[in-house]
């Protein structure tokens, strides 16, 4: 089992407790999912380990995905929990190369939450859905007592159809493949952090929260055989690439200089001692494709507004250690490891 390599010690299911790292998108969460949820629920679809399950319904190939949204603050520069709950799930659908069709939404509201705020975020959610061309077709509302929630939590589920011949999946990265990203890294996480009371700094950075299925449609049109698509949300680019490397049993070699990064994001990270490669994105994707398809894919990405700053950032390499390495801007090499513990609280 490869798990022994990834996780030093087994989860202490008898005496341990959940801590923030279990939800941070890093290794601790991967372990929780692997050793607890995946072990308990085991079935072929879940075992694929993607953010979405692709299944053959009575007819046609469809995908379904679900995500909970607990971001704090609820409103942030460039979005709010409502639009985020649409974009996040639309994107997980899109990362299967799919066209998203329907969303469901489950709300958990805290007693005392202002209706005006609720309306504001519900309107924003509706607008995001309209713009993305998806319908929120069913939902649920629960209210918990004051002090048992945090304003609003939203869980959305998305369903989509995959065009024939398209089958990106986390285990399809092959040595030689090119690794691309659709734009600058870390904008969302920095926008969230800038609003947090105890971190507060001033910046013009806005969350990149956006629905990526339009971009994806162009990409799979140009390169139907794109091997992997994934959105680097919690845990950022670094963690997502490690997930893929692990799933595909490959290594990666990135070029730091090629990774798009806004100057202000870099500065904010400098200030906080953070690495932007671990900072969350909500409107960016990673694509991995055969080297010979890379130019075509890059062109397709750049021709879409959400991929205007797309770039090839590295290549998949053979590596039994599954290291994601990076040639630094400075000229040396380093590992770009999984996020360990939590970088910062609740960004999605």
């Amino acid at each position, binding site marked *: 089992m490869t798990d022994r390599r990834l996780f030093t010690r087994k989860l202490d299911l008898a005496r341990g407790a959940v801590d923030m790292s279990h939800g941070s998108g890093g290794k601790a969460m991967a372990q929780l999912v692997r050793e607890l949820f995946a072990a308990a629920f085991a079935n072929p679809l879940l075992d694929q380990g993607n953010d979405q399950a692709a299944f053959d319904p009575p007819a046609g190939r469809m995908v379904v995905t679900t995500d909970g949204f607990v971001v704090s603050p609820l409103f942030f520069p460039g979005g709010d929990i409502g639009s985020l709950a649409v974009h996040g799930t639309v994107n997980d659908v899109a990362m299967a190369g799919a066209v998203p069709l329907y969303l469901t939404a489950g709300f958990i509201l805290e007693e005392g939450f202002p209706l005006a705020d609720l309306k504001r975020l519900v309107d924003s959610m509706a607008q995001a859905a309209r713009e993305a061309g998806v319908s929120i077709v069913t939902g649920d509302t629960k209210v918990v007592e004051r002090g048992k929630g945090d304003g609003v939590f939203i869980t959305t589920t998305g369903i989509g159809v995959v065009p024939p011949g398209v089958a990106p999946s986390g285990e399809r990265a092959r040595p030689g493949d090119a690794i691309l990203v659709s734009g600058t890294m870390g904008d969302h996480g920095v926008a969230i952090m800038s609003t947090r009371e105890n971190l*507060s*700094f*001033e*910046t*013009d950075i806005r969350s990149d929260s956006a629905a990526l299925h339009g971009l994806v449609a162009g990409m799979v049109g140009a390169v139907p055989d794109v091997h992997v698509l994934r959105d680097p949300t919690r845990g950022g680019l670094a963690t997502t690439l490690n997930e893929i490397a692990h799933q595909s049993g490959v290594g990666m070699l990135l070029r730091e200089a090629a990774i798009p990064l806004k*100057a*202000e994001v*870099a*500065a*904010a990270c*400098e*200030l906080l*001692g953070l690495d932007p490669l671990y900072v969350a994105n909500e409107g960016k994707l990673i694509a991995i494709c055969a080297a010979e398809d890379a130019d075509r894919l890059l062109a397709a990405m750049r021709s879409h507004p959400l991929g205007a700053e797309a770039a090839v950032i590295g290549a998949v390499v053979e590596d039994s250690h599954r290291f994601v390495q990076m040639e630094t801007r400075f000229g040396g090499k380093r590992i770009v490891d999984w996020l360990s513990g939590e970088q910062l609280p609740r960004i999605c």
Partner: protein
Amino acid sequence: MCLAVPARVIELLEDDRATVSLGGVKVACSLALVEGVTVGDYVIVHVGYALSRLDPEEAERTLVLLAETGTVPPASDAA
């Protein structure tokens, strides 16, 4: 832990504090540990406090030195 950044003072605030800017990102910091800092100065900011002024001339000098050292044509390699 000793993380500190060079930031430009863009505004003096009350209570011996200032707004500083790093690459367009602005934060408040305390000037309690430094003296005579004015707008336009660069300071080294650590855990919310300016620890000292940064000397632009010395920085320039270091960069010149780095450039000299780094660009002396390494006869053997350049061939």
